[in-house]
């Protein structure tokens, strides 16, 4: 049953209710637009499996906190890759770009004795410059991004080796940098962060809802808006509760509790880029170029500049990933950002629901996909499985995600929706 109502200009539209909203969502899922649903279901399944098999270790507060520190680098690179993937491009060099930026920061801190207030911006700037160069090669010379970034993948590996003078391992002593991906907030601050975060989300959602209603436009039913807010609150408060439990192995020596500092850092970038993609014309243009480049060009959108910018954002985010990677182990070595980091990051974005064909994806997908990857890696290690099994399983999960993406696309083409 549908109720008809009026919207802007007196056009008649279907009035959304909680049930029609759910029906519409289900229809979209059946039409192939699965969004991040498979990733969320997969995450739940993995947590159940590992939670049953290794309940005392996997489900411990200590392990839960560790997941954030372990996944941070991948999540940051993946957030940046979402922009590149939205244009249907790829950046295979993001892993080693993060390593290079991490090394730049480390060298600035140690060899040059600069404070972190200089070293971190220099590393980030390095990321932006790398991205602008890659993007320019792709956009202006028309070299496929696959080739440009594959070359850069090799090149940056060499740059990293050279920066580290043939493979030295350089340690850092800077307390601030170390705390980024090791430190925790005090219990009080943990709760303040959770409450402010949830409160901010609630205010933003309700203001938007009221704004649309007051102008006579169709808005999501209030029930759905409230459900979203309650859902986030439940998740955030439950997580904060667990993270503020004592999790030190030996409490006598040192106490360990509170939300890892990296959590609010991830949250800030999640909010920032979600805002940029969803609420600014720049973000709109990124989606447009990814959806239909020619239409975007005809609409007067500077396609080349958009293309360059997404590579710049990707490498910038990779630089932060690199900084966090260095922070976590307090040192940089020739394999920082190497081995499977890049593949895991691409995997995170795609598993989360970002389309490899361009035009579809959100920043939150990178975080959810990153969580899936981190849980697989962490859970399988706790189960004592060797790297071989882990790689095979992660590869299969990525393949499954890519198949979902390809099938969704075919289905959309077939049903014309």
């Amino acid at each position, binding site marked *: 049953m549908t109720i*008809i109502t009026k*919207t*802007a*200009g*007196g*056009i*008649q*539209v*279907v009035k*959304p209710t909680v049930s029609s909203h759910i029906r519409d969502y289900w229809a979209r899922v059946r*039409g192939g637009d699965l969004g991040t649903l498979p990733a969320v279901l997969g995450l739940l399944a993995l947590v159940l499996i590992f939670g049953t098999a290794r309940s005392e270790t996997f489900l411990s507060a200590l392990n839960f906190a560790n997941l954030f520190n372990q996944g941070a680098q991948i999540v940051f690179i993946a957030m940046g890759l979402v922009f590149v993937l939205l244009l249907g491009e790829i950046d295979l060099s993001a892993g080693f770009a993060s390593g290079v930026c991490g090394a730049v920061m480390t060298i600035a801190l140690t060899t040059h004795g600069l404070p972190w207030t200089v070293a971190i911006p220099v590393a980030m700037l390095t990321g932006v410059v790398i991205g602008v160069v890659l993007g320019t090669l792709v956009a202006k010379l028309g070299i496929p991004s696959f080739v440009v970034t594959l070359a850069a993948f090799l090149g940056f590996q060499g740059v990293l080796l050279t920066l580290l003078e043939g493979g030295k391992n350089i340690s850092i002593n800077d307390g601030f940098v170390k705390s980024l991906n090791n430190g925790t907030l005090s219990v009080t601050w943990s709760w303040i962060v959770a409450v402010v975060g949830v409160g901010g989300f609630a205010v933003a959602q309700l203001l938007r809802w009221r*704004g*649309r209603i007051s*102008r006579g*436009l*169709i808005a999501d039913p209030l029930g759905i808006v409230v459900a979203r807010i309650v859902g986030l609150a439940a998740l955030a408060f439950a997580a904060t509760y667990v993270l503020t439990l004592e999790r030190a192995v030996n409490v006598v020596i040192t106490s360990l509790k509170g939300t890892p500092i990296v959590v609010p850092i991830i949250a800030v970038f999640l909010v920032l880029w979600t805002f940029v993609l969803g*609420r*600014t*014309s720049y973000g*709109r*243009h990124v*989606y*447009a170029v*990814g*959806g*239909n480049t*020619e*239409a*975007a*060009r*005809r*609409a*007067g*959108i500077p396609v080349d500049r958009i293309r360059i910018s997404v590579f710049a954002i990707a490498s910038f985010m990779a630089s932060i990933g690199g900084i966090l990677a260095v922070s976590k182990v307090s040192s940089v070595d020739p394999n920082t950002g190497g081995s499977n980091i890049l593949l895991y990051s691409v995997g995170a974005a795609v598993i989360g629901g970002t389309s490899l064909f361009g*035009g*579809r994806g959100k920043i939150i997908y990178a975080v959810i996909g990153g969580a899936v990857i981190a849980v697989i890696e962490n859970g399988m290690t706790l189960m004592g499985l060797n790297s071989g099994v882990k790689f095979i399983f992660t590869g299969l999960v990525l393949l499954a995600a890519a198949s979902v993406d390809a099938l969704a696309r075919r289905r*959309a083409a077939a049903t*014309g*929706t």
Partner: protein
Amino acid sequence: MAATPLLELRGIDKSFGPVQVLHNVGLNVYPGEVTALVGDNGAGKSTLVKCISGIYTIDRGTAVFEGREVSIHSPRDAAALGIEVVYQDLALCDNLDIVQNMFLGREKKRGVVLDEATMEEMAGETLRSLSVRTVKSLRQLVSSLSGGQRQTVAIAKAVLWNSRVVILDEPTAALGVAQTAQVLELVRRLADKGLGVVLISHNMNDVFAVSDRIAALYLGRMAAQVKAADVTHSQIVELITGGRSGNLGLPPEKPSDFIDITPAGEKQ
């Protein structure tokens, strides 16, 4: 009808590399009238449209808009003059919704933030002015619309901006009978609102149903531009296929003007 054209093209030449596609083409577009642009496949209709809209730069010739000579180098220039094009290949983004598509490249903002509410209101009012009465939602993805609905969105996008000239490249080519009638009605209504409308179509019934003037392109040359009331169906068909019909059309052709592009061995 108004005697001075809104848009006047004179002596337009356009080549792609060694191939000259448009030769000395002229075209007048009058306010409040539908000018049909006809011609066989490959005659150069779409190319002419893209020259007007700034996607291609012309090699020679001038464009006069409201009596002023103008130069159009990009889609933005054309849009600034109030020239809007509904392209043959629709130029909508499937992954964006109706409102987002209508405002693409010209989003309304408050500060840096998109002003979605204002855009949605304007989109709704524009659709309403085109007599669209019901849609499921203005926030529906364009990929979920039917061919006719997509065409309506594309046309609405073109008239959103107080446009003066709207050019439609084969807007009914992919549509069924009912939706074709709807779109033609829409085209007529645009002209009745005082806009200069250019309609490209291969369907003579459609052309005679809505247009006031007919311009026939033949192998990249403007064969004739005539009032629809002064010509018959068959005269237009002759202009399209041969470039001439009685005293209308191009002078008898000089064979040297044409290059034979039929591949050897495929002569028919």
